[in-house]
């Protein structure tokens, strides 16, 4: 554990060094220096206008995340429980998961217009399918003995799902949620790239259009840190649950 931490420190230091060298080779037109980027990131975090962007992205991301998780789990539980329906739906969901959703952006824009709802829709179509697929797989992998127990206790379908299947499948469902949340963030930001006049994604695309290299790098860095933290948090929860379960 301790040596891993040391190695991580060495790696981060190494990456900063490479970054600094790249900056010295390529010049300020292309990338900004590590220190300048960090300072700019700090300034952005102190800037009220930037917090408006964060708030706008946060609202869209939160809403899209909740819709993707709730809908994904509901559909996944049902498809996992009803084996025939699951078999029928399986290739459709997998295809929807694997197509590059970015190609659907004109369709989403035409259907939802510019603004909040398009951003949320973008987030949802990215996050929904992994949650559904993982939940469905998790329910199908629940040991058959649980089914029999439920039948012996004469539970209704709903009670079986809510009190037996969902808890038994929880660790795998969480793995799906982790991927789903990451993709929802990606989708929301893409939505802001193309379909918005506010939000962190919009701030980023505007910075790159006006060729504000330091701003682009600083926002990218902030996004990376945020995404990695969310990922680490969900990882942590998932591991805790596995130890308990």
């Amino acid at each position: 554990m301790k040596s891993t931490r040391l190695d991580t420190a060495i790696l981060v230091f190494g990456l900063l060094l490479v970054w600094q060298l790249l900056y010295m080779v390529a010049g300020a037109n292309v990338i900004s220096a590590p220190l300048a980027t960090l300072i700019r990131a700090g300034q952005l975090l102190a800037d009220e206008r930037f917090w408006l962007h964060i708030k706008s992205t946060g609202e869209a991301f939160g809403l899209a995340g909740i819709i993707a998780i709730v809908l994904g789990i509901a559909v996944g539980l049902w498809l996992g429980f009803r084996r025939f329906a699951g078999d029928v739906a399986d290739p459709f969901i997998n295809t929807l998961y694997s197509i590059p959703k970015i190609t659907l952006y004109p369709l989403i824009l035409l259907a939802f217009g510019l603004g909040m709802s398009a951003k949320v829709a973008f987030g949802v179509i990215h996050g929904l399918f992994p949650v559904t697929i993982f939940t469905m797989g998790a329910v199908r992998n629940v040991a058959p003995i649980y089914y029999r127990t439920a039948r012996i206790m004469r539970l209704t379908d709903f009670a079986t799902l809510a009190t037996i299947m969902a808890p038994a499948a929880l660790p795998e469902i969480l793995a799906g949620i982790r991927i789903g949340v990451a993709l929802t963030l990606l989708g929301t930001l893409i939505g802001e790239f193309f379909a918005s006049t506010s939000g962190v994604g919009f701030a980023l695309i505007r910075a790159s259009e006006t060729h504000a290299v330091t701003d682009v790098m600083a926002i990218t860095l902030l996004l990376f840190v945020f995404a990695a933290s969310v990922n680490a948090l969900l990882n942590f929860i998932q591991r805790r649950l596995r130890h308990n379960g």
Partner: protein
Amino acid sequence: MIASSQARLSSVIITRIVVLTALLAALELACRLGVIDRVTMIPPTEMVAALWQILASGRFDSDIAFTTGNIAAAVALAVGLGFFVGAGLHALPRLRRVIEPMLSAYYAIPTFIFYPLLIVIFGVGRTALIVMGAMFAIVAMIVNTILGLDRVSKVVLQSAVMLRLDWFRQLILVRLPAAGPHLVTGLKLAVTYSVIGIVAGEFILATSGIGKRVAFAYDNFDNNTMYGMLLLLLLGVIAVNGLLSTWERRLHRRFGQQ
């Protein structure tokens, strides 16, 4: 038992076809009756007609070739480099332990935020798009290479040692085929991610390509061209994905022990 499971399989497939047909028919009807207006979406049959017209007239052939070529180049780059980086990380456990969490967080970041930077470095054109696609795809290949190499059975490795193969030959002649199923998974994901990276790049800024044509048609309310091109792109991706999935399943069955 076998007969009944086959009967079940065919009834599943029939239900799939019925559901798909019903969905398409409902969409067609909704478009024709004006529930969905024409500015938003044209009926599916007209999309197919538009696609046919695009292919028959050949007016976007150079764009289609541009995008396909870029995707092929990006996939080749990502798969080739990704395999060797993955093999290298697999051989260096200390480095791997540090880097692995970063790899798993990688896809939480929209990589094409770097596209504007790439344009500054490489200029508007092929190179920036290919690098973009490869950057997006390479991590999927690295992760799956490591996963595949982890699963190579000990017996196989021992026989490689007995044959006194050097590290490189061991990698190419023994580990690579044994890790095959996971490498195909990596390839499949690399294709999807390359398409995302390149098409997104073409949407944002490019001189030609399918993404560029779609964005141009969108700006000009030319729904026939837009939906025709989108249909072409989606059908292409689904076809390639389906082929690779079949290959993947076959390899998994052959190396069935996992």
